[in-house]
C-alpha cells in the first residue's frame, strides 16, 4: 500500500546522468590487461552454437585433453592469463619442458646420448611457433639451468 514517493530534482538529475552513462557502459575488457594478441571481439554466432564455454573448461583436466598445437596456441596467444598458465601445466604433464633461454618448449625425442649435472644432450623436438609445427633438433644440449 506504499505507492510512489515523489521524485526530487536531485533524483531527476541523477537519472539523467545515469542515462548518459548508460551509453558508455564499461566493457569486460576494461578491467583486464591489454590483450595485444587476442583481444576480446564478441561476434553474434548462430544461437545454436554454444554461447558459453563447456563446464570445467578452466580446469587442468580439460586442458590435458587438448592437442599439443592447441596448447601451444593458448600458450603463445593468451599470454599473462590463467589459460596460458593451464596450457603450460598441461604441456609439462606431457613431458614438454620450457627453455627460458630460447623461450621455447622442448621434448625429448629419444633417450639423450649424454647426461651430466649441467645438461642433457641428444635429439629433441621443439615447437617452432613461426612455422607452427614441431621440428626435430639433433644433438641439442638442454641445459638444466634454463629449465623453467
Amino acid at each position, binding site marked *: 500500500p*506504499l505507492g*510512489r*514517493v515523489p521524485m526530487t530534482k536531485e533524483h531527476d538529475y541523477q537519472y*539523467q546522468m545515469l542515462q548518459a*552513462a548508460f551509453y*558508455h557502459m564499461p566493457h569486460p575488457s576494461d578491467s583486464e590487461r*591489454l590483450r595485444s594478441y587476442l583481444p576480446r571481439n564478441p561476434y553474434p554466432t548462430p544461437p545454436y552454437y554454444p554461447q558459453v564455454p563447456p563446464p570445467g573448461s578452466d580446469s587442468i583436466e580439460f586442458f590435458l585433453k587438448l592437442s599439443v598445437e592447441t596448447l601451444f596456441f593458448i600458450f603463445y596467444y593468451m599470454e599473462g592469463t590463467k589459460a596460458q598458465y593451464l596450457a603450460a601445466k598441461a604441456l609439462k604433464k606431457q613431458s614438454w619442458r620450457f627453455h627460458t633461454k630460447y623461450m621455447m618448449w622442448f621434448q625429448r625425442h629419444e633417450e639423450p646420448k649424454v647426461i651430466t649435472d649441467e645438461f642433457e644432450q641428444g635429439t629433441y623436438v621443439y615447437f617452432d611457433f613461426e612455422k607452427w609445427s614441431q621440428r626435430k633438433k639433433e644433438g641439442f644440449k638442454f641445459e638444466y639451468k634454463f629449465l623453467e
Partner: protein
Amino acid sequence: FDDPPGLQEKTEFLLREWVQLYHAPSSGRESTKAFSQIVYQMNMQGILKTDDLITRFFRHATQMCVDMCYRTLNDQAAMTPTMVRNKCFRTLDAFVRLIALLVKHSGESPNAVSKINLLNKVLGIVTGVLLQDHEIRKTEFQQLPYHRIFIMLLLELNAPDPVLEAINFQVLTAFCNVLHILRPEKAPAFAYAWLDIVSHRVFIGRMLAVTPQHKGWGPYAQLLIDLFNFLSPFLRNAELAKPITILYRGCLRVLLVLLHDFPEFLCDYHYNFCDVIPPNCIQMRNLVLSAFPRNLPPPDPFAGKLQVDMIPEIRQAPMIQTNYASLIQPPSFKNELDTYLNTRTPVTFVTDLRSTLQASAEPGCRYNIQLMNALVLYVGTEAIAAIQAKGLQPNKQTITHSSHMDIFQSLAVDTDTEGRYLFLNAIANQLRYPNSHTNYFLHLILYLFAEANTPAIQEQITRVLLERLIVNRPHPWGLLITFIELIKNPTFDFWSHEFVHCAPEIEKLFDSVARSCA
C-alpha cells in the same frame, strides 16, 4: 594554484618519457629498469623533492591522461572501439604502473605510512579530477579513464608481492574510502564503472575472503548500502527504464555471488540491507534473507511433522552487525520504551506509539521505516531475552501477556494500512534461517493472526507473507515455515476466511502456493 613555473611542461615531458620507457622491450621485469630511469629524471626535474610537488605532478599528469582520453574518444574517426581503448589504455596503464611503483617504493619498507599516504593522495587527486569533470561536463562525462585508472591500480596493488601484501588492508581501505566518496548518489554518471569495480572478482575476493577476521566485511557492506540508497527511489517507484534495470540486474548478480559464496556475510548484514532496500523490492530482499550459515543448513521445510522448536539452533541468537538499539531515536523515546518494557507503564506510551512513528502526512511516506524496523527488532530481542531469562523458549504460550506483546498488538491494531504493512514487513524480515529471532517472530506473526480483532489484519498478514512467496526464488526458510504453519494448523482456521475466497484467481493462487508448500 601557485604552480612553480614550468611544472606543467616538466610533467608533460616526464609523462611522455615514462610511457615510452614503460612500453620499451628493455623496461625489465615489472618495469623495474624503466622505473629507475624515470625516478632519476624526476629527481633531476626536482619533482620528488617535496610532497607538494609530487601532488602537483600527479594532478597535472592525471589531467593530461584524462584530456588525452577525451580527445581520443571524441576523435573516433576510423577507429574501432577496441582501437580507441587500446590507445587510451596504452597511456593509462603506464600511468598506473608509475603510481604503483612509486607507492611500492616510497619510504623504507616495511614503513607503510608513507606508501599509504602517497596512495591516498593520488586516489584523492583522481577522485577530485573525476568529480570536477562530472560537475562540468555533466552528461558529456566519460567514465573510461577513471574506471581504468582505478581498476588497474587496484589490480596492480593486489599483485602477489610481499611489500604489497604487507599493506594490503590499508590499500583496500583507501579504495573503499574513494568508492564511498564516488558512490552513485554523488557521481551517478560513474555508477556503472563504480559497480564494475565493486563487483570485480579480485575486489570481492580480497574484501570478503582473503582479508583476515572479516575486516573487509563492514566496508564492503557500506558500499552495497551506497548502491541500495541510489537505486531505492527508482525501484520504489518501479521506474524500471533500461538504465535502472541494467544497474538493478547488476546488483542482483552481485547479491547472487554473495549468497552463493559468502552467505554468512549476508546473514550478518541483512538488517542494514533491508533497512535501505525498498519494501517493494521483494525478490531482492528475499535474496538477502534467504542466506544461512553454511554450517547450519536448515531442515527441509516441506518435510512433514517438522518440529521447529526441536531444532537445536532455534535457541541461538543470530549475529547482527548493526547497533539497531541506537537507531531508536530520540533518546527520550528510547528511555520511555525501556521504561514501558520493564514496568508496563505508562499506558499512554503504547497509545502514543503511532504518532511517534509517523514522519509525515504524505501518503506512502507517513512512517519512519528505519525507526519501525529498529523498534520491532529491539522489542523482539528484549522479549526473547525476558523469556529465556525464565528458562523458557519463545512459543505461542510464552510470548503472550507481556509489555512486549502490548506494543506489538498496539502496532497491529492502532496503525493504518500503511503503518501496519511496514510493521508486518519488519517482522517478516526476521523470518530467516533457524535462530531465536526467526523462532520468536514466526510465533509473533501467527499469534497476531490468531488474536486479530478484524479480518483486515488477518488479510494483511496473509498479503505480506504471500507477496514474498509468489515471487521467483529464493525464499527464506523462516517465511516458508510460517506460511506452512498458517495454512496447515487448524488453530488458524485459515481456509475459512472470506478473503481466501475473495476472487477465483486468488483462490487458485492460494491453492498453488499451498500445493507447492505441501
